[in-house]
């Protein structure tokens, strides 16, 4: 073929490729005409209202109020009365001048970009501005919502929202600078539900830079979709009551509805007030430096030694593994003696059977039970027995994360055979080296949430539902997660003696040796177990877990008070008041509640560490 013809054909083919590309870009593909980067179009973001949070009775816990952000597009600014502007918004004139100067000096760099000029203008200022908005070309207002907390309780749960920072933006490309995002608590766990969907109005500008005309009559505008409301499982009055009781005390209350796993109240004291939360930016420094750490949610983050409440777990595992029966008796003479040591106990009659051991919280009994578990002929050597035991404990949700909807939930502690191999040498440790696990001391740590969940598990005779705060999660994934029954692998009949023991601990006649008499309520059958956890940093921690009523339980409670002495002394009364308040709707023992409320148990802390 003629080379010239070939060459010209080639050139025309290449030209056709270019023409095809032009056709694609300019005629076919609409994407470039309404692109967000198209400088001729001004995208005014419409922010959605964030979803509200209500309690189980319909009280609004977290609501919204309207505020306004004043936006500015520097290229559109014309001369305006700066003083009038500052008076309208109550802002400092020097700040305004500084910003305007910056815009003038960086005209090219800024181009058509839009910035937030003033944040969170209250609606009173906005209405003054709206009357004379025409005097300030280049500025416009967009409505934003700010959080309000009309119900004075539960501030530690909700968490706060703030503008997304650079790190967050980098990981979540769907967010833009200036978007609010939940930083902690429910706001964070349910960010996807609460946030809603942003919309925008598209304005178009002419060649002289003047905007203010809707692009194609709003055909391409997208309305903002408000976030969905959440219904918390929290019982507002109970939560408020719990916080009132915990005044001047350090510790937690967790109350769960056993049949659903719904958290009725969860108090971490000292905690945040709704006032702190509304002004979190201002208060943050003070809160962060408070030695009592009010922002630290003890109920889900503190791993405490559970103390004697843990005996119930060993009682159940012992029965399940067949190493004890409800009628197994062990004797106790103020303790359990073994080669090289003694585990002390308090004075009570001896020997005891299983239900009496729970009722009187006998240490020696559980030393025997634990030794029997570790010497279980079906699981030898001891490392096997230990691993088996650990697995069983983990099924109770202890030593593992429960998976609640607290973003900050921690798993607590449970040692492994490795821990002991390291301390004592491989194969060189026996049941006696780890005997403190029998009574919930030593290397075991549980959060109050996990202890409350244990109470709920006993109340349900064998299963729990992951404790959670939100009743109406809209997605099926969460719904499935928070309705599934987790069986702990203990046969139902083994729970009866344990529940009987917990019943007797509270309801046995005075003088019979029940450890939890102070949890007793007329007309309501409470089953409970005390714990007195030794605290290496100071006075013992006071622990109590219970559920009520005995038949068809409606509430399971854990109260954990730091440095407050024996479990029966303070934790049991607090728990009994919570139970009464919830089941009866009111508390008849007014003097008793006043006494609990006004007792200051903070005085023993803080313990200063030696430097």
């Amino acid at each position, binding site marked *: 073929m003629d080379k010239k013809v070939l060459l010209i054909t080639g050139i025309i083919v290449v*030209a056709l490729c*270019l*023409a095809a590309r032009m056709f694609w*870009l300019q005629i076919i593909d609409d994407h470039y005409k309404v692109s967000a*980067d198209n400088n001729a179009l001004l995208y005014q973001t419409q922010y959605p209202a964030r979803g509200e949070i209500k309690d189980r009775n319909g009280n609004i816990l977290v609501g919204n109020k309207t505020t306004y952000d004043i936006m500015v597009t520097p290229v559109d600014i014309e001369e305006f009365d700066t003083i009038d502007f500052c008076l309208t918004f109550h802002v400092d004139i020097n700040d305004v001048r500084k910003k305007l100067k910056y815009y003038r000096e960086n005209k090219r760099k800024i181009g058509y970009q839009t910035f937030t000029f003033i944040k969170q203008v209250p609606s009173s200022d906005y209405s003054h501005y709206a009357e004379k908005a025409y005097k300030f070309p280049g500025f416009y207002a967009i409505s934003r919502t700010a959080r309000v907390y009309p119900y004075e309780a539960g501030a530690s749960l909700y968490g706060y929202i703030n503008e997304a920072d650079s790190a967050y933006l980098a990981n979540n490309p769907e967010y833009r600078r200036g978007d609010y995002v939940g930083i902690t608590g429910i706001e964070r766990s349910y960010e996807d539900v609460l946030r809603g969907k942003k919309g925008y109005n598209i304005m178009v500008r002419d*060649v*002289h830079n003047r905007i203010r005309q809707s692009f194609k009559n709003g055909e391409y505008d997208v309305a903002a979709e408000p976030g969905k409301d959440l219904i918390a499982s929290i019982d507002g009055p109970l939560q408020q009551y719990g916080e009132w009781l915990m005044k001047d005390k350090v510790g937690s209350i967790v109350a769960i509805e056993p049949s659903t796993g719904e958290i009725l109240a969860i108090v971490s004291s000292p905690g945040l007030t709704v006032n702190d939360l509304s002004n979190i930016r201002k208060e943050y420094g003070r809160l962060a430096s408070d030695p009592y750490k009010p922002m630290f949610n003890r109920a889900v983050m503190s791993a405490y030694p559970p103390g004697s409440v843990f005996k119930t777990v060993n009682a159940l595992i012992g029965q399940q593994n067949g190493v004890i029966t409800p009628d197994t008796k062990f004797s106790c003479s103020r303790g359990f003696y073994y080669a090289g040591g003694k585990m002390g106990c308090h004075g009570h009659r001896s020997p005891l059977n299983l239900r009496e051991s729970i009722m009187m919280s006998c240490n020696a009994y559980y030393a025997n039970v634990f030794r029997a578990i570790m010497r279980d002929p079906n699981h030898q050597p001891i490392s096997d027995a230990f691993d088996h035991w650990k697995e069983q404990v983990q099924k109770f949700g202890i030593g593992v994360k429960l998976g609640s909807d607290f973003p900050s939930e921690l798993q607590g502690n449970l040692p492994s055979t490795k821990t002991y191999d390291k301390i004592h040498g491989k194969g060189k440790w026996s049941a006696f080296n780890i005997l403190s696990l029998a009574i919930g001391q030593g290397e075991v740590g549980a959060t109050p949430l996990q202890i409350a969940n244990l109470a709920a598990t006993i109340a349900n005779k064998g299963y729990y539902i992951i404790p959670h705060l939100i009743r109406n999660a809209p997605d099926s994934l969460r719904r499935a997660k928070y309705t599934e029954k987790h069986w702990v692998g203990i046969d139902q009949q083994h729970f009866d003696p344990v529940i009987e023991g917990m019943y007797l601990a509270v309801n046995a006649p005075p003088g019979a040796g029940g450890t939890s008499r102070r949890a007793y309520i007329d007309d309501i059958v409470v089953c409970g177990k005390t714990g007195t956890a030794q605290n290496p940093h100071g006075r013992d921690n006071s622990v109590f877990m219970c559920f009520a009523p005995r038949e068809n339980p409606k509430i399971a409670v854990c109260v954990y008070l730091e440095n407050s002495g024996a479990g029966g002394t303070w934790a049991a009364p607090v728990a009994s008041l919570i139970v009464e308040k919830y089941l009866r709707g009111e508390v008849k023992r007014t003097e008793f509640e006043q006494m609990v409320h006004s007792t200051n148990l903070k005085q023993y802390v803080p313990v200063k560490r030696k430097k």
Partner: protein
Amino acid sequence: MTGGMSYNSTRRARKVDFGLLLSYLILVVFGWLNIYSAVYSEEHSFILDFSQRYGLQFIWVCISLGVAIVLLYLINPRNFPPLTPIFYVAMLVLLTAVIFLGKEVNGSRSWFFIGSFGLQPAEFSKITTALLLSYVMSQYGFSLSNRKDALRAALVVIVPILLILMEKETGSALVYVGLILVFYMEGLAGWVIVLGLGLIAMFVITIALSPLTALVCAFSVCCIIRFFTSRKPVWLLTAIPLAVLMCYIPTLSETETFGFLKALKPEVWVLLLMLPHVFFWTRDILAKRETPSGKYALISLVAAVIMVFSVNIIFDKVLQPHQKARIENLLGITEDLQGIGYNVHQSKIAIGSGGFTGKGFLNGTQTKYNFVPEQSTDFIFCTVGEEWGFLGSLLLLGVYIFLITRIIHLASKNTDAFTRIYGYCVASIFLMHVVINIGMTMGLLPVIGIPLPFLSYGGSGMMSFTILLFIFIRLDMERQNKDADF
């Protein structure tokens, strides 16, 4: 050539190729208007405001027209050929000097500054290279099939390329690659061009997909070529299953039975699979049992394999980081609309927002305030696309294609070898500039900073393109005169 001065002048004036002159004027005026629009602001709205680029461009246009007139009427083109080595060497000196004495602009050392006016020798060396190449190739007895002649011609092109590469003006150097078309027109076999394009395709496939894909493609294409040209098509029957097998090497190596495949990279396995084929192929060629096409197909296959295995070296060692990033961005390997992809993204929006008829002169909103950097120079086509739309862009492209094909047509008709070859040079250079520049602004090619002839702002460019074109117009007039005389 016996007529008096005045007689010659009038005849010449009539014989200037009207088509070329008209397209030149259209492009220059259209370019100037677009620069005005791109830089336009209300404070400086007078089109002859000499503090602005459009004012300056007006000066460049005037000077260029003056140069054009000088070229048309005051210089005898017959004198050009023997002088070309002198021009060429002088330009090499300038190109070398600028490496040491030039000012660094955007990372490349290619500018001389006289006061505030910059001069870019690389722009002008296209002219001297084209002239010398035409001179060398038009010598009596020159033939590309003579190895010495071919080498000499190649050197003429390669030396300035190397110097310009040293200035880090990769874009300008790339333009010289287009001169391969001149070699093609003057006798270079067509399959070399095909091979060149094929190697570029290998490079892209290797980066965008995988070395394995590239190898399988090369093998399949070469075998198919052989199939259609060979006297023994039966070979293809083994090539197809082999190619299929190659595709499945990574999958097979995941299975237990063929787990041993993991021992070597899949590319190496592909090579091993090709070996017997290549062996028998070579044997057939040596025994003269293959057609020339079969031979070229094998050479191409070997070249492709070498290309695939050296892509990483080219990509990592030869190219500079920003060039790498531009290629990766074009191929969609990385997306970075704020950084490296910003220009192209903004440019595509500008062109795309033009629609069918465009927004009208001075009504482009997208191209104001330098949203597209280099708006008036390398990205001037954005303004065209936005303000004149698909219609205007297409017409502009049409004018360019008319200009280029007209030059080729006139050149091929010319009986004088020097004029003919020079015409091919001019056409190739324009073609490279137009395709690369427009392709880049529309996101078809990586960002390569070379101007759009006659439209982009810049004195050196305007002048060099004008000289390049008008030397040809003048040489072409000579032919017409001859026609008239004899």
